[in-house]
């Protein structure tokens, strides 16, 4: 079993937000940074990091969802959303300790990183001009 997520080299990150632009352009067809699945965090102008779904082992978002709309895709180990079931209640947002889930207010559905399934690599990694982003793959102990 593998856990896969976006990892940021904080020393290389300049806070240019090109990952956010690239994500929302690819996923939404427009530049809407609130709907980017990856976000730049600025504690101070120089203390930068990004957050996207960490594929954490405990998956509080899945457990919180009252309608069973979120599940873990067995093949990719990323979150899969059943849009028909999602009512936009936001419990998963509340449950995620990393703040990695966003809400599309216009459609009342959530948005979360799926590592750009079907592409050869996630768009944020592809576009990052500083090569600060990478795909981190680690083994998860079976039965976890």
């Amino acid at each position, binding site marked *: 079993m593998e856990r896969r997520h976006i990892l940021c080299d904080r020393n290389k990150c*300049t806070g240019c937000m090109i990952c956010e*632009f690239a994500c929302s352009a690819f996923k939404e*067809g427009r*530049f809407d940074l609130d709907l980017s699945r990856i976000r730049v965090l600025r504690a101070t102008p120089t203390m930068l990091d990004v957050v996207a779904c960490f594929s954490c082992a405990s998956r509080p978002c899945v457990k919180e969802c009252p309608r069973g709309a979120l599940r873990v895709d067995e093949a990719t180990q990323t979150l899969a959303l059943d849009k028909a079931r999602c009512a936009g209640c936001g419990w998963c947002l509340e449950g995620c300790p990393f703040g990695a889930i966003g809400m599309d207010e216009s459609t009342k559905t959530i948005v979360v990183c799926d590592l750009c399934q079907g592409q050869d690599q996630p768009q944020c990694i592809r576009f990052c*001009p*500083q090569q600060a982003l990478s795909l981190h793959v680690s083994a998860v102990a079976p039965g976890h």
Partner: protein
Amino acid sequence: MSSYNSKYLAVDLTSGKTEAREIPGRWLRDYLGGVGLGTRLYLECARPGADTLGPDNPVVMARGPLSGTMAPASAGHAVVTRSPATGLLCGSVSFGLWSLALAGTGYDAVVITGAAASPVYLFIDDGRVHLRRADPLAGQGGPQTAAAIRRESGDSRVQVACTGPAGESLARLATIRDGHRLMHRGGAGAVLGAKKLKAVAVRGTRPVSVADIDAMRKAVLDLNTGWRQTAAGGGGLEPGECLLPGSGRCHLPARNYQQAIPGGAASLAAECAAKGRLIKTIACPACPVACQHVYRITDDPHSDEQVVLDNEALAALGPLCGMFHLPVILKALDLCHVYGLDPVSAGASVAWAMECFERGLLTSQDTNGLDLSFGSADGLVETTRRIGQLSGIGAVLAEGVLRAANGLGQGSGEWAMQVKGLEMAGCDPRTQPGLALRLAAGLRPPTLDGRDDPSATAADACREEDLAAAGDSLAICPNARRYFRDFPAEAARMYTLATGMPLNPAELRRAGERTNNLIKAIDIREGWQRPDDWLPPRLFREPLDTGEGAVVSEKDLTAAIDGYYRGRGWSAEGLVPGEKLAALGMDDLREMLKGNRHGAPPHTLR
């Protein structure tokens, strides 16, 4: 789909009314955005001959058409108003999160007219607009004001452009602080201060759509990959390279242009590049270059007091004041952020005062016992603070060197290093005839990378300047422009992909030319005359101390200016003929641009 919203926000501070207005499609096509569109909107609502520090001098903040998209280094906006320092039009661009927020509000520009009775700040919250009381913010410094407004709105996404205590006191070298760098020259902060407008806060969360997003993604990836290959070390620029004006390529003025440092300042560059003080290099939104060098101000390694140092501020607060010690320069720059001072003008004013002090025109009585010799750390830092507070000698210097020299007299105008009332920035023009022309007569500030081709003709200067105006209209960062392989072609393509409006490189230049001519025509309306296009006396009389003995030749400069006017299609007196306006499609503006119909000239330049 287009990245334009085709509307601007009109704010009348006198009545407190705000209104969304349509921008004619033709203006967008002709002036693009940023400085161009800002100038056109300025013309629409300005009264000729108005006092620059009165209610009738509007301020226009206009976004670039690419801001909010992923086009490289495009998150910018322009501030256009008439400068209280020169009396002429000044349009400057700056970049960062404020510009990005403005793009998300659904307005392409904000036009602010009138003046409030008591301090207010403008809050543009997506489509909603509020004018809020700013009495508690009066006298607050730049960073504090931004933090207070953010606290009040309860959202860290709110971005703040504000004027500082200096601007509130109408100091002519006050700036608007809207990001990590203080980019707005010419006293724009004082214009806000005169309107009793403390700040313009923006929260923009609306999406920006473009005409062809897939092609734009592909083009951006292509451009950014090219940059990565050319930029040093794969990640941004090396500190010192982007930081110093023309390192190794031009003479850096020192001690108020009494000396020059050939080849930039190697020792200063080394200190700038030392890793101890440099915390990190950060980028504006959508910029792959990342040229903002963030320095720790104090020696305390745990301190979070930091400031972004750029080449112009470094040159003005450093060598120009005889200062080569980085911590002192950083401290002075930090004070510019707090008080809202243009660091270039502040540095030049201190340098002028230092020369007066060394020549005995100013005594320690005038400076309250402060040692104002060149290179005095206390002198630089304390005088910068006094300019910000307008106390003691600072009140005189806050008016800028031209007015300070006029007040002091005794020949101090000889070393007041200003053009048309605005303090000079960057390289020494005595070895660079092209730069001398651009500084004396130019409409856009020359880039500071020190390039100067001696074989360049007046026509080249016009072309370069038109391209600069086009770049400032698209609000693509001047620091990043040189990383384009073919700027006109690539920028025009980005524009087309974003707006869906066809634009070729020739039309892009044309738009820049149109903007430059419009700026000139407004300047003429406000009383500009040919003798204003000239350099300070020192540059003609005192040769460079580097052994080359170079001075600016009056004859050569006159010839260059003649050639420049000819190249522009202007009269020998530098006036824009009606045919020129007609050729640029601005025939309809002739009536508006006619001479100042309101009696006396609005200002005295000389």
